[in-house]
């Protein structure tokens, strides 16, 4: 029996509004002293009432529009009832049957590098967006005990700074067919949302998080198999690893003739495995009903038109523009638009009059390598576009060689010093003075008379050795073209 993987994702995005979803408290909670950004409303104190943040509603509509969704003319909030200590009201204000946005899609281009299986051809996967809705985030529980999990905790602490931060939930259709696609989809989605500027999308801070529903079914079957829901994936790699594990786990169960149990599973990033968190038998009945403390929000046609008009350039359009404006290859353009910060970096280089192809090459090559090694994001790099351009200018002027450039790059990346400063400090300018080079060449020839002799006997490869020796004597500074020319000239004179 051949099995097909079916994956649907739920992505939660914390919006970067200045205030919380239903009160005036600051939503910028990360790193703040616990329980300092709270008020009667977000603490759910008796009698307190929510007032919806209009900006958050607009941001949600913007996300939906960027994903090709339609914005509901009337949207309302509902209560999702369940008990949990991190929820001040023991219900979450969310949206049930009238979300802000419905029915969109995101096209995910699967390039060779995104496919872990080498055999597949690049293709585009259209992933349907079922809905985009708005809700409030919960508080945070910190379990004190060895495991850090609630079960074995001695006691638990509560921080309500996050409670009430606007949270957008994006739910896909079950259109994703592999772990690679899931990872690529999430990367693409994050990129789109970053372009909108409505969230910092920081996965480490939890402002961009993902749950996955996964099931398998016989190829050709239309029916969905029993799914498991995987939570706690906080990186692209984790999403991929968790889903690979789940595909293998479910495949094994099904091929052995067993049945998958519907349950929620926890991803363990250390062991790259998932484990059961709770089974659906204990599933909640959320008893959704319209939130009576809030009036429905009406989006007028003008409002929607204005939000649409205000949409910034999205990655797909930016990619097209990069190809046409800068004559870049599709793969270069894809790399340069793979995140907002990368595109911004590139465009800043262009503003500083860089050569597109050269800038692209250095960004994909040295810059990527150093960023990966240092575990930094491009926007955190000390080597800014100005630094890169300073380096490229020295190369173009012939002041430094390609080899030197890489060393200077490394130092500039490390220290944040401009290339010209490093060159100046270390006296690294390329030696292009013919008489100076001539002196060095002469020295090399006299020190290596045996090689000179061999050259004259017709052994061509001796010239390579002599160039190397001369370069060594110049401490690598000699202009290679000039050095070659002078060396050949001197050798022929000696003949």
């Amino acid at each position, binding site marked *: 029996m051949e099995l097909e993987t079916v994956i649907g994702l739920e992505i939660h995005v914390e919006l970067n509004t200045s205030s919380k979803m239903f009160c005036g408290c600051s939503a910028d909670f990360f790193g703040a002293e616990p329980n300092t950004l709270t008020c*009667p*409303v977000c*603490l*759910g*104190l*008796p*009698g*307190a*009432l*929510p*007032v*919806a943040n209009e900006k958050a509603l607009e941001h949600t509509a913007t996300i939906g529009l960027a994903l090709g969704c339609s914005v509901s003319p009337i949207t309302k909030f509902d*209560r999702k*009832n369940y*008990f949990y*200590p991190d929820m*001040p*009201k*023991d*219900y979450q204000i969310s949206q049930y049957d009238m979300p802000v946005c419905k029915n969109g899609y995101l096209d995910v281009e699967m390039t060779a590098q995104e496919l872990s299986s080498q055999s597949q051809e690049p293709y585009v996967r259209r992933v349907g967006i079922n809905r985009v809705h708005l809700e409030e985030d919960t508080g945070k529980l910190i379990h004190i005990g060895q495991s850090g999990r*609630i079960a074995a905790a001695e006691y638990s602490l*509560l921080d309500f700074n996050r409670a009430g931060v606007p949270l957008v939930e994006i739910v896909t259709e079950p259109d994703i067919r592999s772990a690679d696609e899931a990872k690529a989809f999430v990367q693409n989605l994050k990129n789109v949302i970053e372009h909108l500027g409505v969230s910092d999308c920081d996965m480490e801070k939890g402002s961009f998080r993902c749950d996955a529903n996964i099931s398998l079914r016989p190829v050709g079957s239309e029916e969905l198999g029993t799914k498991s829901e995987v939570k706690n994936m906080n990186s692209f790699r984790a999403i991929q690893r968790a889903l690979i594990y789940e595909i293998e786990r479910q495949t094994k169960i099904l091929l052995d003739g067993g049945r998958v149990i519907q349950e929620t599973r926890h991803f363990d990033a250390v062991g790259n495995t998932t484990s059961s968190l709770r089974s659906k038998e204990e599933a909640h*009945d959320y*008893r*959704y*009903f319209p939130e*009576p*403390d*809030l*009036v429905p929000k009406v989006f007028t046609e003008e409002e929607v038109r204005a939000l649409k008009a205000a949409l910034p350039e999205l990655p797909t359009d930016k990619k097209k523009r990069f190809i046409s404006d800068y004559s870049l290859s599709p793969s270069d353009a894809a790399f340069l638009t793979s995140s907002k910060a990368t595109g911004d970096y590139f465009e800043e280089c262009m503003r500083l009059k860089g050569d597109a192809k050269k800038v692209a090459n250095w960004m994909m090559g040295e810059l990527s390598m150093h960023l990966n090694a240092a575990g930094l994001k491009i926007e955190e790099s000390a080597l800014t576009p100005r630094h890169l351009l300073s380096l490229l200018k020295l190369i173009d002027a012939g002041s430094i060689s390609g080899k030197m450039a890489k060393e200077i790059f490394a130092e500039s990346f490390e220290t944040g010093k401009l290339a010209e400063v490093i060159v100046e400090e270390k006296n690294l300018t390329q030696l292009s003075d013919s008489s100076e080079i001539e002196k060095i060449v002469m020295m090399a020839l006299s020190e290596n008379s045996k090689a000179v002799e061999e050259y004259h006997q017709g052994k061509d490869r001796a010239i390579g050795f002599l160039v190397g020796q001369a370069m060594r004597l110049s401490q690598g500074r000699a202009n290679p073209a000039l050095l070659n020319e002078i060396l050949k000239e001197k050798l022929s004179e000696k003949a």
Partner: protein
Amino acid sequence: MLLYEMTLSKLHDELTSGRISAMELLDGVLKRIASTDSKLKAYLRLTEEEALKAAKAADARLLAKEGINPLLGIPFAIKDNMCTEGISTTCASKILDGYVPAYSASVAQRLFNFGAVMVGKANMDEFAMGSSTENSAYQITANPWDLSRVPGGSSGGSAAAVAAGQAIFALGSDTGGSIRQPAALCGVVGMKPTYGLVSRYGLIAFASSLDQIGPIAKSVTDAALILNAICGHDPMDSTSLKVGTSDFTQGLEAGVKGLKVGVPKELMGEGIDDGVKAKVEEAIKIFEGLGASVKEASLPHSEYALSAYYLIAPAEASSNLARFDGVRYGHRTKEDVEDMVDMYSKTRAEGFGAEVKRRIMLGTYALSAGYYDAYYGQAQKVRTLIMDDFKKAFSEHDVLISPTTPTSAFKGGEKTKDPLSMYMSDICTIPTNLAGIPAISVPCGLSEGLPVGLQIMGKALDEPTILRAAYAFEKEFNFSERPKL
């Protein structure tokens, strides 16, 4: 006349003319409380210290002639489901034992700003669920007209306090009749304004889409003055209406000549006590005598109002009361617990009274998967039909009148064993809550020595018309009996 027997408007004259001071007035009211509240038990707690400060401040304002307004220096009671900063607020429930709010409800804050003097937190049915104030976890309030009878509920403490002169006015909350019914049973004026006219911020919710705060007073004019003070848009309550403030005392004396009064036949039929019906019929004659035209009206779906109400209100309550979980404030079980769910269960089992539990269970059931459409969804449809009934009735009539309650005050304990008979106490008042429209109850006489209330209902935001009608009736009828305590 004793100070505590006077109306708010009369006392305002006394205060501004300098004949009395706010301190003297407060003293009179506190003495009245001291001499009567052991019998009445209208107050859950007195706030004498704060009251003395407020009265002193009021006197300073009176002396300096600064910030003079009709509520300045007037002692009032506030139902214990409205938050008062630094002052214990319990909703008469054990689950909120020891809870001290960190902020004041918008209505309380407004009254404080006007310089009114809060004397205490009034008793109520736990979380405003009940029609007799027997559901309080702390004490049972008596009816000042007959101590063996109930004052009505759930704002029974507020109504009894005003009727007995323990406060010049009070604030109550009305979810299905909880201001008007006790006002009727205690012989005072009670008003439920249009939903959204008065901010609910800081009112500990029972059923959010029905709850509305309103005044309980000794006269229609007083009610209008209090409404002036507490109404108006509040940015903290998104259901608060964005209507400009108006002076509800304007036009009170315009009379009812030519006013089209409708009497919904469904609220005058079966279940209405003969004595009550007779008083309402007399009231109708008075309206006719004043030049109003009275005709029969119909609210065909009102027979379903009670059923719809007892699905919608408990559904919302089951959710609103979820936050009382023992995690952060109020009561938490002292029993050993196995886990979190066990802690929630024990805490809530200990903290809530029987009626509250009954409604939480009703509401939880009505909202549960598979039953939503059959119960909650259906009830919302009935609600729409009732709104349409009113719309239609108000296209033909300016106001509708009916008894406020089907009977006068019943004996304590009489209905506590039979929740359904207790629920019937609100059959005349519930439809207006479902429709969100305003209604007022004014005394229209005594039946076997107990007060009877006349309810006047109007269209949304048409408070001026029902106040005008109530005022005309009050002036003509001149109900002057007082409870003998």
